[in-house]
């Protein structure tokens, strides 16, 4: 392998991996059992996994069609649309949380109507956690899937059309299988981002054990009182997310080897 690639690659690996090594070195392994058995840890972990998974499903439902529109439509508004999709990537998540308040909060444009008409309030509920995570994480899915759609050979779709398939059938039977690895990669990115989400969640959903306190929030609060506990919780979150991703890879992506 050429050195001009190998050397920066090695530095890149060190740069990304060393903070993790730092965490592992500082982890008070002797306290591990006590810290993990602390009340609320299992609850926070479960809430994190459930809400990140729901956020990923919601992102798939809305994000794949959005990616298709971005990749295939020929409207001039497409550039603007793409810029809008990337807004949550640029916005500091805490600001994103405030923005969600302004739309879905009790006083928000949509939220006040939901409250008046149906008595539904979103902030400080698990629903708010899922919404905040979806807002921040969906762009990762959209951008991955759009990239995959652009890279896919459009002639397959043309051939399907000439063979009499409708546009919906073509999308379902030809396009989707073609870009499945891209969708899977996007979903993984989206899930990982949702799992680590902090700023928008603590702002829009608040922090309450059992309802809205996800692992990143628990870690942040533990840091105020007991840095060792915060490190243990971080390592736990990392271990569970890595295990989940490896398991999924073996089960669904192992055969193609694409991801």
């Amino acid at each position, binding site marked *: 392998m050429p050195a001009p690639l190998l050397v920066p690659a090695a530095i890149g690996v060190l740069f990304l991996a060393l903070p993790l090594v730092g965490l592992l070195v500082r982890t008070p392994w002797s306290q591990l059992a006590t810290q993990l058995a602390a009340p609320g840890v299992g609850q926070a972990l479960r809430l994190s996994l459930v809400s990140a998974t729901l956020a990923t499903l919601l992102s798939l439902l809305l994000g794949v069609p959005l990616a298709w529109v971005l990749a295939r439509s020929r409207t001039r508004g497409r550039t603007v649309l793409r810029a809008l999709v990337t807004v949550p990537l640029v916005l500091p998540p805490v600001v994103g949380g*405030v923005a969600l308040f302004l739309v879905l909060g009790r006083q928000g444009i949509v939220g006040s109507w939901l409250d008046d008409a149906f008595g539904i309030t979103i*902030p400080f509920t698990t629903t708010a956690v899922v919404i905040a995570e979806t807002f921040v994480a969906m762009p990762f899915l959209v951008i991955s899937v759009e990239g995959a759609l652009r890279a896919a050979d459009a002639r397959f779709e043309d051939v399907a059309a000439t063979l009499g398939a409708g546009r919906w059938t073509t999308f379902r039977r030809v396009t989707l299988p073609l870009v499945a690895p891209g969708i899977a990669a996007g979903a993984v990115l989206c899930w990982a981002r949702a799992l680590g989400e902090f700023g928008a969640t603590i702002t829009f959903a*608040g922090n*309450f054990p059992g309802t809205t306190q996800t692992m990143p929030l628990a870690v942040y*609060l533990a840091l*105020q009182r007991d840095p060792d506990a915060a490190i243990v919780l971080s390592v736990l979150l990392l271990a569970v997310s890595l295990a989940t991703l490896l398991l999924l890879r073996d089960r669904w992506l192992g055969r193609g080897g694409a991801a």
Partner: protein
Amino acid sequence: MVPRMRIDRRVLAGLAAAALVAGCGSSEGADVPDDAVSGTLTVFAAASLTEVFTALGGRLEDANPALQVQFSFAGSSALATQISQGAPADVFASANEAQMAVVTDADLAEGETQVFTRNVLQIAVPAGNPAGISGLADFAREEPALAVCAAEVPCGAAAEDVFAAAGVTARPDTLEEDVRAALTKVELGEVDAALVYASDVAAAGDAVEGIAFPEAEQAVNDYPVCVLADAPNPAAARAFVDLVLSGEGRRLLTDAGFRAP
């Protein structure tokens, strides 16, 4: 690294002039030390002191033209950690005794620390008090949306004390990571009430109303100040601490919602 704030002399000259006009009839000349100090003075102070200390710094600069005052405002625990790690500060003003103890226990304070002001909890409600909150007992009700600081941060520990004193089992909807985050949710009208410090209510302006309650006396926060042992500019540090403890300093603090010690 905590960003340091350089004071804009023109702004502060204006502020100081305004303070002079507002405080008419007081003996402002007597509050300023006679011995002129010079050089750079670095003050580490709790974030809640931002407005008052900035004004006092300008006051000191006006009286001592060769002096530059720079501030680092942050959470008291972060500042205490930085001082322990050797940050070159002259003065430390903490929002509670616990964080000052971090500094004094490490023998980093010069002489005695002095409590210069106090802060008590207040109930903050959105302007107009839409949910009709009247006292601490409302925090036990199910319907209103309520924010309290998490027990891990100082305002949350104080909140636990007042709830215990009042015998109220609070039913908050969210446990906030710091007092300003709780206040923001009141300002946005997303919670009906939050437990914050009186000085925060004063700083929030018209969007927020404060409701005092008797149990707040159970959790009064003392703010100690000290000159640091390794102060690069001890003379100026002494002058600043004197100004904070003076009638002028006390008046500005009271105007900002703090309470005399």
